[in-house]
């Protein structure tokens, strides 16, 4: 049986990710560490698209507004997981980064001694949500530790 004292969980507050969170918390023993990776997809960098009419101040206000929105959403997400981890006496290490989810997860998994990576299963195509998916094939080829893909609740 492999040790699961250091679990890397990648989640972004969707149904599948919440199922992954539950599983990660259940697998992590008290005293273990739950590394929580939250990736802000890099498509946000191009989200001003072809806006050329606004002045710099309006663009700045928009940029700051989006940043604050994302931060608020992440803060609530982290607070919720932090509480759940504390209840189970699990050390909780949140880590936020900007980029492509798959690349960020591979990079993060390499950095510290992770025993297991947990993610939720991809969202069905018909289900609404941001189009920023994990490339599971790339992930399985690149990871040197076990990967657990938790199915979405029915």
């Amino acid at each position, binding site marked *: 049986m492999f040790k699961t004292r250091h679990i890397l969980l990648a989640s972004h507050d969707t149904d599948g990710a919440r199922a992954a969170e539950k599983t990660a918390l259940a697998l992590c023993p008290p005293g273990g560490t739950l590394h929580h990776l939250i990736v802000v997809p890099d498509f946000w960098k191009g989200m001003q698209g072809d806006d050329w*009419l606004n002045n710099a101040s309006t663009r700045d206000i*928009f940029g700051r507004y989006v940043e604050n929105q994302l931060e608020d959403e992440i803060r609530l997400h982290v607070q919720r997981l932090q509480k759940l981890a504390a209840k189970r006496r699990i050390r909780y290490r949140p880590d936020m980064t900007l980029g492509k989810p798959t690349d960020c997860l591979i990079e993060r998994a390499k950095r510290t001694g992770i025993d297991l990576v947990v993610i939720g299963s991809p969202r069905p195509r018909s289900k609404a949500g941001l189009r920023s998916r994990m490339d599971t094939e790339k992930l399985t080829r690149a990871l040197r530790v076990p990967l657990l893909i938790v199915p979405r609740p029915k």
Partner: protein
Amino acid sequence: MIYTKKTPWTLIMGVIMVAYAYMVSAGMMEPLIKLLHTGKHAGEMVTLGYWFGGIAVVVGLWQLLATPKQGQADYYISTIGGLMFIMLIAFVVKWGLDPMMGLWGKNAEPALGFNFAKMLNLNYVVMGIIAGIIVVNVFKIPEWAQNGVRLSRLGLKTGVILLGTLYSLAELAQLGKLSVVLIGFFVLGSVGLVLWMGARRNIPNSMGGVLSAGLGVCGVSAAVAAAPVVQAKSTEIAYTIGTILLWGILMMFIFPIVGKAMDMGPIQFGAWAGTGILNSAQVAGAALAFQPDGIETLKVAEIFNITRVLFLPIIVLWLAVWYVKREQTDLKVNLGEVVLGKFPVFVLGFILMFALSSTGVFAPAQHYKGKFFDNSEAKLVKTDKEGKVHSKLLKDEEVATLQAEVGKVQREDQKAAIARLMENKKTMSIDDDTLLRGVANAKILSKDGNAILKKAHGAVYHTAGKIKMFRNLIAWFFTFGLVGLGMQITMASIKQAGGQPLIIGTVVGATKAIGALIVVMMFVHETI
């Protein structure tokens, strides 16, 4: 922070540009120029090649050899690499790909049965935007070019400002009235339709607010301006912008194809594109795609665009008040702040250039469509270096044709104008010209008779040198701006299109495009 990147690319691009300009001036590119029929661009190939290439060589050397210091100068110089990157792509597209595509289109016509390049409007504007999109999505914009690519916005704004030099008071007044009516109806209609549909489909007010601004006013720009005001969630912003970009790009390609299929003229197409396309940049792209070798369509489309942009602060204010009422939030709406903050300052530049142009600084006052009236002998009769006389006065046989047909004209004032034309062999005044154009447009005379009237009109209208220069500059500013804007359209953001915004966006976008087409075809005529 030091913005300048140590890169050899600016220097390399400069050397390429200078070398190309030299090869053109030395005649080494003659076979290619002949093959592609780009001789008319040879002058600008040399001038622009030397100018931009020279600047790129100097800045490129500085970037490689000097040690940049923190400050404004460092930032401004750091933009040169990106600027040259866009210009190099524009050169390749305009002088190479565009004529080559034209050639391929012609060659493939016998096999395909149609000219694909013409049908798909694969001209330098469309291909420039596509090149930009390919660069950002396939190759990524190099770090050293990123500051310069952002300058493309400035290019488009400068292009619009310079457009102010090309309108006459009559044109601006007529187009202005038309655009206020059409844009007013369709902007307010689209915003209202989105809010109504949103309420029926139970989408949050914040999403309805940001989506209605984007679909109703001017695409991504309006969504960016409205999102903080209606407190849109991040996913709502992503959905909305994705939907708008997807629609904008599709429409930019579809509109010119439909416009040509329906045999629309510059005024009709400009009015339709300016009203029916969501994104302002795509309006410019579609107008230039429809008429790449002239800017009459762009002129009309931009008046509609500017009118729409002027609606932006009003709509944002409306949405802010609407949102506060609906959500009962603590958000305070400051009228002055919203209107001033969202007011497009560059429109003032357009008005200033128009005002300057009206004083006769660039061309004699009362110029029409960039041309001015002058029927003096000095303008109509010229002698070339070899002593050969070129006259634009009517010939005796042309006068005879008119004499034979003048009986068809019923209105006395038009008859009198034709009589003066026949007597003097030239149009005698602007009023006469207006009357004669009325006869030609009404097609009262035969084909030959109409051709003579049109020739008489063309003979007394002259393009001022400065106006010609502005036309070229405007075309280049828009080309630069659109290639650069293409580099800011990422597939990752377009991919976010989906959910309710896509459904509502499709319904409202299609309604707006089709509705505008019907109204334009019914009420907008090719003469103003």
